[in-house]
């Protein structure tokens, strides 16, 4: 056990810190979940890509630095410490890319990854449907074979598609075998949202941003080269991605450490009139963020020595999402009657609170995650 960072890791951190301090936009960009903000975020992503900070853990040929997992964590800590913008490329980079690396063809990787990393093409996720939320296997959108044109014709509706109104492409599963039920007979497609037959309707989220979209597909042609993994094997392919979503890649500790640090600043500004119970809540939240950091280092060490992540990823998802809710709830408690304000200096907390509330819902509700922990980590019987 050695909890100091190596010289290489320290050098990596210093380089990241210097670049971020010089380049993170001031003042902060508007929300990337609005049309205007999204365009500005794409410029930022391009700047990140040009400096090779967009996808540090990827191979050099796709714009990365082949950074270790530990270095990736360090980068994330520095990114959030510097107050870096949200990553509007994240669904592509953190959800689709791991699947492409694992199951995509070289041609698919070459064609999609560089443009994804540079934000030339932005990706959204097409999982949920009106009747397939927690129960993802309830997917009804279908794809019919178009032998003549060498591809498939997709129809149906996807919903709660984050940033769907601004993105260029969508990845998701569709039913290719109409006879099959539940998680059988699904296929994973990469869909061009500019194609004929696609209609995207923006949907306003809790915080007022049009960060959601409904995507309607009517006989949309998708060529065979945009099938990821085997035909009818979409469930297996999709599970690889939800594994990443729940697990390590999406929610690095840096984000919560940065929020905890901001919370401590807020506490200091309000310490005079803060209720003693709020003080304890601030301490708890900081300890929890610290616990999240060290649990991550623990896991990453295991992974770097050849271990795998499994259903324990559900523990991680429960913890970060509920920690994020607590961090913001504590901040609102500190703000007291001013908490409801969405203008002024502290408005970011109310916005962050609303965003945090989505955490226990998306990527598998925390109720589902607790079932997974009980059944697959602890071995309790399914019903």
């Amino acid at each position: 056990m050695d909890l100091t960072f190596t010289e290489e890791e320290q050098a990596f951190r210093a380089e990241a810190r210097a670049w971020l301090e010089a380049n993170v936009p001031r003042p902060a960009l508007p929300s990337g979940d609005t049309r205007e903000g999204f365009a500005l975020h794409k410029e930022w992503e391009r700047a990140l890509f040009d400096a090779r900070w967009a996808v540090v853990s990827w191979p050099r040929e796709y714009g990365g630095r082949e950074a270790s997992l530990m270095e990736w964590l360090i980068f994330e800590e520095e990114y959030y410490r510097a107050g870096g913008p949200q990553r509007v490329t994240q669904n592509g980079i953190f959800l689709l890319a791991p699947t492409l690396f694992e199951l995509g063809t070289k041609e698919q990787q070459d064609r999609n990854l560089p443009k994804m990393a540079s934000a030339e093409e932005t990706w959204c996720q097409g999982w949920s449907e009106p009747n397939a939320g927690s129960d993802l296997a309830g997917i009804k959108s279908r794809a019919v074979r178009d032998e003549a044109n060498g591809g498939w014709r997709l129809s149906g509706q996807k919903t709660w598609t984050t940033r769907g109104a601004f993105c260029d492409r969508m990845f998701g599963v569709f039913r290719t075998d109409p006879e099959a039920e539940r998680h059988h007979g699904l296929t994973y497609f990469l869909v061009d949202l500019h194609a004929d037959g696609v209609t995207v309707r923006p949907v306003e989220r809790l915080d007022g941003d049009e960060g959601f979209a409904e995507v309607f597909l009517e006989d949309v042609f998708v060529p065979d080269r945009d099938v990821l993994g085997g035909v009818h094997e979409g469930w297996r392919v999709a599970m690889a991605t939800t594994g990443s979503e729940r697990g390590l890649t999406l929610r690095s500790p840096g984000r919560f450490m940065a929020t905890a640090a901001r919370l401590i600043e807020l506490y200091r500004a309000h310490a005079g009139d803060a209720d003693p119970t709020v003080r304890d809540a601030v301490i708890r939240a900081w300890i929890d963020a610290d616990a999240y950091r060290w649990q991550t280092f623990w896991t990453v060490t295991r992974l770097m020595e050849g271990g795998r992540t499994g259903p324990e990823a559900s523990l991680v998802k429960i913890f970060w999402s509920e920690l994020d809710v607590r961090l913001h709830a504590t901040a609102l408690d500190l703000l007291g009657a001013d908490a409801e304000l969405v203008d002024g200096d502290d408005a970011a907390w109310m916005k962050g609170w609303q965003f945090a509330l989505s955490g226990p819902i998306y990527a598998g509700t925390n109720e589902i995650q607790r079932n997974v922990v009980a059944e697959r980590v602890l071995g309790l019987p399914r019903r």
Partner: protein
Amino acid sequence: MRFAFTDEQLAFRDAVHDLLEKECPPDRVREAWTNSDGRSGAWDALSEMGVTGLSHPDVAGNLGVDEIAVTLILEETGRFALPEPIVEHTAVALPAVAQHVPDAVTESSLFVAGGPLVPYATSATALLLERDKHLYLVDPAAATLTPRASVDRSRRLSSVQWDPSRATKVGDVRDAALAFDRGALGVAAQLIGLAQHMLDTTVDYAKERHQFGVPIGSFQAVKHHLANVALALEFARPLIYRAAHSLARRDSQRSVHVSTAKARASEAALLAARVALQVHGAIGYTTEYDLHLWMKRAWALAASWGDAAWHRERVGRAILDGETAAEEQ
């Protein structure tokens, strides 16, 4: 000891319910987010029915109406998320103004109260404001109103800058304390109504929404979430009514009773909002769905007129530090 409302009180509540169902459906609440004054348009109908003026001492004297009846009505306005300054005008300002400066009350009077953020100040004919534990009735034209944006966009907030003067002073320490308690209890009652509505609509949704081939309300985790909300409400509501009784009788412990009520009502409403969103999932996370109108009102009111921690600490000063006499059994 009889801890229940009279038939008259319940009948009046039901009449207000019927009026609000007609005059303040969810679409009206939604419109108040974007219209000019943030209000429902139901104020006139409520005035005509005698609701908004219910707390005027003349009316109260004639009809035997007191804080108990007003509280029951306010709970109902919470259920409908009525976007109007009814707590500020009817519960807080009107009885104080009518008692101390009766001539200041006209048919078109609309008083608001609060501070430092005052809702609907730009609609008001006069502002009841507190400074150094005394009450002042201030002409909006004599104050500087700076609009502030609430997460609940129907709540048109202003921060108010003003100078107290002998001429505008209308109440002393005791009046100011009473006004504060009436405000805190008023929003507590609304919070209970908001929470009940969120519970009811979430139960309905959980019965209808199917996943994995069954209604989501058949999952034990969903059941227990919703049972916890029912539990919070069951043990908050009587505290609201008891505090109303204490205010009506000017019980010496009324501030402690108001604080227990506001603390538990705030907690119950925040829990109801949290569970409602979690059970609804993504649909509840869009502004196209109505839940957010109730949820954001609950967030705002839970933190206004003292949040749960503030009120608990006020209780603590009484029961632990003996700042006021302990309750007689």
